[in-house]
């Protein structure tokens, strides 16, 4: 039965196509059982290894509170106590997100976490960090208040001086809002998934003084 099905599938798809290639690629992304492992090496039992998942948790709260704010619109938090709560949740989750991410970065930097062919893990983390800063800055521009106006005029001078001001116009609140709620969160989300897959693929980096049997 299976052989007959295989013949039929081969007759239609030829055995090699994008679907088969993608399936094979996805099936080898991480070693079997490592996508959500329930055990880790003993050296992971350290507080410094906690800041990665704390960063991820804060990002989830930031995304959910941001989606909540999007339901009410940009002016909602100015006129509603519930909206103000959602705005505060969004602000403080982002504050914690950056604090945790920077401590995670310090830990991984002094651990030389790019060892053991983990360069792509490091690089995706760095790009995610820089993209997150851009996401936060466009968030400042989307507050719909005088603070946002002041920041946008200061940023405009800077971006004009390096030639970006014509197509990335910080004085255009609609463009900044869409970058903040669609484009940049999408990039941060994709980078986060790739970063996590790299961690699962290569395992958590051991400390510099770890022995092979630790």
């Amino acid at each position: 039965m299976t052989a007959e099905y295989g013949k039929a599938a081969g007759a239609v798809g030829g055995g090699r196509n994008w679907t088969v290639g993608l399936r094979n690629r996805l099936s080898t992304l991480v070693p079997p059982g490592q996508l959500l492992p329930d055990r880790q090496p003993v050296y992971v039992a350290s507080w410094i290894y906690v800041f990665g998942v704390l960063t991820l948790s804060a990002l989830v709260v930031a995304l959910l509170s941001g989606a909540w704010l999007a339901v009410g619109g940009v002016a909602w938090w100015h006129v509603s106590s519930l909206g103000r709560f959602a705005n505060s949740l969004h602000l403080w989750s982002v504050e914690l997100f950056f604090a945790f991410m920077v401590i995670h970065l310090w830990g991984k930097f002094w651990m030389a976490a790019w060892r053991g062919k983990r360069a792509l893990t490091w690089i995706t983390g760095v790009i995610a960090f820089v993209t997150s800063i851009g996401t936060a800055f466009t968030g400042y521009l989307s507050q719909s208040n005088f603070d946002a106006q002041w920041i946008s005029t200061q940023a405009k001078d800077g971006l004009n001086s390096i030639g970006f001001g014509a197509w990335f116009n910080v004085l255009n609140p609609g463009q900044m809002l869409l970058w903040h709620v669609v484009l940049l969160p999408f990039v941060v989300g994709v980078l986060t998934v790739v970063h996590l897959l790299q961690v699962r693929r290569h395992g958590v980096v051991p400390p510099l003084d770890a022995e092979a049997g630790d």
Partner: protein
Amino acid sequence: MTALAALDAASAGAGSYLHWGVISISTTNLLIILGMVVLFVLAVLLPFPGAGEPSEAPRVPEQRQEDRP
């Protein structure tokens, strides 16, 4: 005079800043950065609950994954 008084009030509410040559930082931001440094040091030094106990955790799984690009 009223405008000047308003400016004084606004600057008084802007918080305090510390200056070292070309470096200027608000006291609040400096305290937050120092707090993060303290948190980092504590995370490195403080023992994790359960650390050091016998474990059946896998032996350095990276060894079988090092060959992956």
